[in-house]
């Protein structure tokens, strides 16, 4: 018998990624999940309570009401991104790929907000929308958009769309450029209009990118926190109308003003957020990516 030597080189090549990923991602994740299964005893010591924290989060009214409110707001926040950010990103990419004059300039301008700090974005938009001295006042737009329960969340979502629309645009643009010119030429020779070329050739060929953009938007939105915190504060006012899972988690874990932080319930909220994101990504992987592969092969 000629046994092969143990393939040490595989271990060596995997080690850096595995070690770093374990230390900085997997361990904190598991530790946070473990924290969510514990709580503080009256003596102050940590005790294992199983799934009790999750039960509290879903059944006790003081926890479940803000939680469902935050989740529902988060879904609205996500839907606005899906319905506005990604179609607009696709539209911009489709326009830019036609190589009209000044493409590079537009591409750069539209992408610029993406690389700015969210704190700056929040500050700028707070000034623009300010009913007291906002720049839109002279043209009659002086509603307190960020101060009304009905408009605060959509306004914030649109600010976020404005900031991030450059990312789907770039991804779509890269995908559109990769489509061989011959396909489009052949279609045009056959008498297809630009509209037909887009719907029948370009869009089907960039479906993998559509999926990636959707899942990136999903993960990004259900992890969102910074813009709301920067513009509305941790209480995500008015009356929690702009509270999403990220801000709800922040208040719970770290506390706010006189509210003491509760690391155990905070970790529980984080656990639920992880679950939501996991389910979303799984749906994408199983439902979308697999089907795409079937089409491609």
């Amino acid at each position, binding site marked *: 018998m000629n046994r092969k030597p143990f393939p040490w080189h595989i271990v060596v090549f995997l080690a850096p990624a595995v070690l770093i990923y374990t230390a900085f991602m997997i361990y904190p994740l598991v530790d946070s999940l473990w924290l969510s299964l514990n709580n503080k005893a009256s003596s102050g010591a940590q005790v294992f309570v199983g799934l009790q924290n999750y039960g509290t989060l879903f059944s006790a009214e003081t926890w479940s009401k803000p939680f469902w409110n935050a989740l529902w707001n988060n879904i609205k926040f996500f839907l606005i991104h899906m319905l506005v950010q990604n179609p607009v990103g696709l539209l911009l990419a489709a326009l830019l790929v036609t190589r009209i004059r000044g493409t590079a300039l537009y591409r750069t301008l539209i992408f610029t907000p993406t690389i700015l700090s969210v704190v700056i974005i929040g500050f700028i938009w707070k000034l623009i929308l300010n009913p007291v001295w906002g720049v839109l006042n002279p043209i009659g737009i002086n509603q307190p958009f960020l101060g009304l329960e009905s408009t605060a969340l959509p306004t914030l979502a649109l600010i976020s769309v404005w900031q991030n629309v450059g990312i789907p645009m770039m991804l779509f643009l890269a995908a559109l450029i990769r489509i061989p010119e011959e396909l489009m030429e052949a279609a045009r020779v056959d008498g297809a209009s630009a509209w037909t070329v887009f719907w029948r050739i370009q869009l089907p060929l960039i479906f993998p990118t559509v999926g990636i953009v959707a899942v990136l938007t999903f993960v990004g939105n259900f992890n969102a926190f910074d813009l709301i915190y920067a513009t509305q504060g941790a*209480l995500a006012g008015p009356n929690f109308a702009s509270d999403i899972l990220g801000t709800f988690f922040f208040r719970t874990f770290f506390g706010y003003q006189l509210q003491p932080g509760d690391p155990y319930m905070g970790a529980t909220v984080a656990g639920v957020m992880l679950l939501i994101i996991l389910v979303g990504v799984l749906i994408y992987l199983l439902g979308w990516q697999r089907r795409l592969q079937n089409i491609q092969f």
Partner: protein
Amino acid sequence: MKRWVFLMTAIAAAASLGLAQKTKLTIESWRNDDLKIWQNTILPAFMKKYPNIEVVFAPTAPTEYNAVLEAKLKAGTAGDLITCRPFDQSLELFKSKYLDDLTGLKGMDNYSEVAKAAWSTDDGKTTFCVPMASVIHGFLYNKAIFKELGLSEPKTEAEFLAVLEKIKANGKYIPLVMGTKDQWEAATMGYQNIGPTLWNGEVGRKGLISGKEAYNKGGFLRAFEALAKWRPFLGNGYQAQAYPDSQNLFAAGRGAIYPAGSWDIATFRQMNPKLELGAFKPYTFPSLGITQCVIDDHPDIAIGLNAASKNKEAARTFLSWVASDEFAQLYANALPGFFPLANVSYKVDDPVAQQFLSWRKECKTTFRSSYQILSRNANPNNENDLWNASAQVLNGTMTPQQAADFVQSRLASWYAPQKGNK
């Protein structure tokens, strides 16, 4: 060359000998804004009087202070003197035996019970920090606008509303400069500003803690009703008006009356030195038979003794000095708007600050109803609920009764003495 070395060594030795005789104290603080004031004004005055004690002011950034301090206390590297946040944060430190009991400190009898409450155990028997300063709530107004419209300082609710009505009718200025976007102003400068007069200050506040009073009854409900009357007089788009917006509006002379905390005085002096600032105290309600004014004299900062300090003798000397009139005089003038809490005589140069201070003699004093004990629970949290409810009352999305019931039912959901008062 050799002579030089000898000389230098001799000087160094002499210097270190001189230092060795001095006891060195370090103050932990979050007030890094005040570094200059401590280094140039307050500490030199103390060290002049007690040449054997050297005091160093070592502040940390305000947002990091709590965490840094706790880490230092655990590691045993914290300074001798600890600047104390009010209420539970310092109480926790005392319970964890990081702070010494200062009940018997010389100078402690210079403080009233209200002044000490923020740094005492729940039963009020043990005090562990020497109160340094409080902030007082009231109203600031633009004297030029009042003169132009022929108005005088209102003393009662009816007069207050009449003044606002006149400013509104004139149409040139925003009658009441306050927004609800940041929420806390509605509770702090609104509810907790005019409320104490209605709930009879300490009687009402202690009644809440013992369960005799409730947020949806008596003075606490009336305070929401009184607050709701402000709504027609707030500026256009006040729902999205943040605290800095309000400050800018008032400083720019576009608004007449500004519900204030005393710390705003210094801000306005700096933002617009030409602004003619006036002040009046929270109004009374003769129509309800309430003519005794009560002000919110909110404890903000104190100083305690690290239980692990090696220089307790010197530290106690310093703490007694903090309780003296000399310290009060220095501190009050270095930081107008922060008022020393000791019952000693001191004079503030800023006339508006002086006016705020004079209310302590004319009115009874108390502090914010939610700060002691009642905001200990993470969820629901009484202070956060008051912010939300007060902002909603001003936004018109809750009636005063709804707001009061909301705050009360959530307090009663966890706080045992309130359990019966739904």
